[in-house]
């Protein structure tokens, strides 16, 4: 009898741990998409502060397309397209008109918040089942690890593949080298004959598409529903994650999971009713962002060695 009870208890504990870890993965995935996209943009020397706006536009577009077309893949694609479209506006202003990157990024966020609210006014309160899970045959049968790692929706798998691809692209391919060269010294890259503006345009569009994908994940898988301003600062946290990761893809992934963990653990703590007001717990992800930012930025040399040297600087081609 006693042994059976103990077995039951372990099983119950395992279930709780599994459920927590699974929610951490879903909370980390949108951060991972947005941060890895922004990292590539920044690696090319462009600082796009409009991540929050692009996430929201991606979220509302993805949700709307799924609502009207009933096709999840179309919705995901539309979310990416919306994010990339908004980043194209940014690129036109910053790369074409030489506008201030900081000001334009802020404009992108302000516009994105308003525009997504406008587009989504008829979608508030609409229900969606969420993206279907795609268990990997065989592997998903492994006890504990199977449900933890191999029973996710398509985007979770994609996010991991994306980290591998970005890491490979940046450090193992010629085009990745060009992108990094453009980000470190646009004048030298231009002198060698690389198309600085085109490289930056592509990197910015990729960042926008990934932010849009992060948004689509929020509205189609994480929540899944549309509410105004639903990203709740995730775009800014993603920007901080890039600094935290010192512009390295794998560290971006570690950071995203760390922040997913903080988000979920504070929610669980709220649910268990520990003595603190819920608002104190909700502050945790933001305070943690400040904390890690300070921790990493404290070492000026580390930032100087890892940050793309031309980040945020406008490029004036001299012909």
């Amino acid at each position: 009898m006693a042994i059976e009870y103990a077995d039951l208890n372990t099983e119950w504990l395992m279930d709780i741990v599994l459920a927590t870890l699974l929610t951490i993965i879903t909370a980390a995935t949108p951060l991972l998409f947005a941060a890895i996209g922004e990292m590539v943009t920044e690696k090319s020397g462009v600082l796009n502060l409009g991540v929050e706006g692009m996430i929201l536009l991606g979220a509302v577009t993805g949700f709307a397309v799924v609502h009207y077309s009933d096709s999840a893949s179309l919705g995901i694609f539309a979310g990416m397209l919306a994010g990339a479209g908004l980043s194209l506006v940014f690129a036109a202003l910053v790369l074409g008109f030489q506008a201030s990157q900081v000001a334009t990024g802020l404009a992108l966020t302000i516009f994105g918040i308003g525009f997504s609210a406008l587009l989504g006014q008829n979608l508030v309160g609409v229900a969606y089942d969420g993206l279907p899970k795609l268990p990997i045959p065989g592997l998903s049968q492994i006890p504990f690890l199977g449900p933890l790692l191999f029973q996710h929706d398509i985007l979770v798998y994609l996010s991991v593949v994306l980290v591998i691809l970005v890491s490979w692209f940046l450090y193992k391919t010629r085009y990745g080298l060009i992108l990094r060269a453009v980000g470190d010294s646009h004048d030298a890259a231009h002198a060698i004959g690389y198309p600085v503006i085109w490289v930056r345009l592509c990197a910015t569009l990729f960042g926008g598409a990934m932010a849009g994908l992060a948004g689509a994940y929020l509205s189609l898988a994480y929540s899944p529903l549309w509410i105004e301003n639903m990203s709740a600062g995730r775009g800014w946290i993603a920007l901080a994650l890039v600094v935290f990761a010192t512009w390295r893809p794998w560290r971006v992934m570690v950071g995203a999971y760390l922040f997913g963990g903080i988000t979920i653990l504070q929610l669980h703590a709220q649910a268990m009713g520990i003595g603190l007001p819920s608002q104190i717990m909700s502050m945790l992800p933001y305070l943690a962002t400040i904390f890690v930012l300070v921790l990493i930025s404290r070492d000026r040399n580390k930032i100087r060695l890892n940050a793309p040297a031309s980040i945020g600087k406008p490029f004036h081609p001299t012909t």
Partner: protein
Amino acid sequence: MVFGSPLVAFILTLVAGVVLFQIMGVNPFDALYAFFVEPLTSLYGWGELGVKATPLVLIAVALSIGFRAGVWNIGAEGQLTLGAICGGGVALLFYDVEGFWVLPLMIAAGIGGGMLWAAIPALLRTRFNANEILTSLMLTYVATLLLSMLVHGPWRDPDGFNFPESRIFSESATLPLILGGTRLHLGWIFALLAVAAGWLLMSRTIIGFQVKVVGEAPAAGRYAGFRVRRVIWFTLLLGGGAAGLAGLIEVSGPIGQLLPSISPGYGFTAIIVAFVGRLHPVGVLFAGLLLALSYLGGESAQISLNLPLAVTGVFQGLLLFFLLACDVLIHYEVRWRSNTLTSTRSG
């Protein structure tokens, strides 16, 4: 051309508005009338314009000084919230005390609260090299949650049927009105004084000069022995203090109590105001009135044409986009040469 580009940007925003309303199936001219003319057809409306412009002008004058130094304080919304919390806290503390000194004390607390909140990014930037854009913005979320916690918990009105609202401030804790038949309050005078003070600071004082040099030629600033840290501290505290004052004015003027949400994003819109006003105090005054009109217009269009309030944010974002694009006309001279567009840097 410096003041031409906001005008061009505004006209382009109106054109984009016509297209937007057409797509939404609303008669664009009715909509633009509701947005930009209808709010100003009464004295009350003009008073409201001042009420909405007060926080925008106050914050934007201070922010534009920071922006000129290259200090990107974009967490004014959080500093505004903390000003409201501290100033409102004083009002609740002296709830049953009558006295001429209550309001000045609230103002001091509001400014102090905003400065305190801005001191955090200043410290983290100067001591730990942490980016002030991200830290000041994160603190905005923290401040909003703090206010929500207070009005849901200890500061909730005991006779308020459990609504998350504080008590309504007493007479001595309320800003006096200055124009009969409207809600225009003393805060508008503060905003005008801030414009004058901002102009004096930037054109007549040594710290104003240092701000300009550090922003435009950091190397020259270092060479001249200007301390960059001091400029960072100064501009952030100035922005925080102004935003804190604006927050206090909101809760002690038009709102009259503490609520979970006390600002429709004034702290963020003030960033647009600063840019549209060309980072110049007088420009900021006009830009503040224009953006205040966009808030009023949003409300009026919501009532008369049933348009969603979010249109305001879209207009504000579009205005900033067009402005930034038009600025290319200031920095560059466009020349047509053998069918190819080339641009030369002129200044």
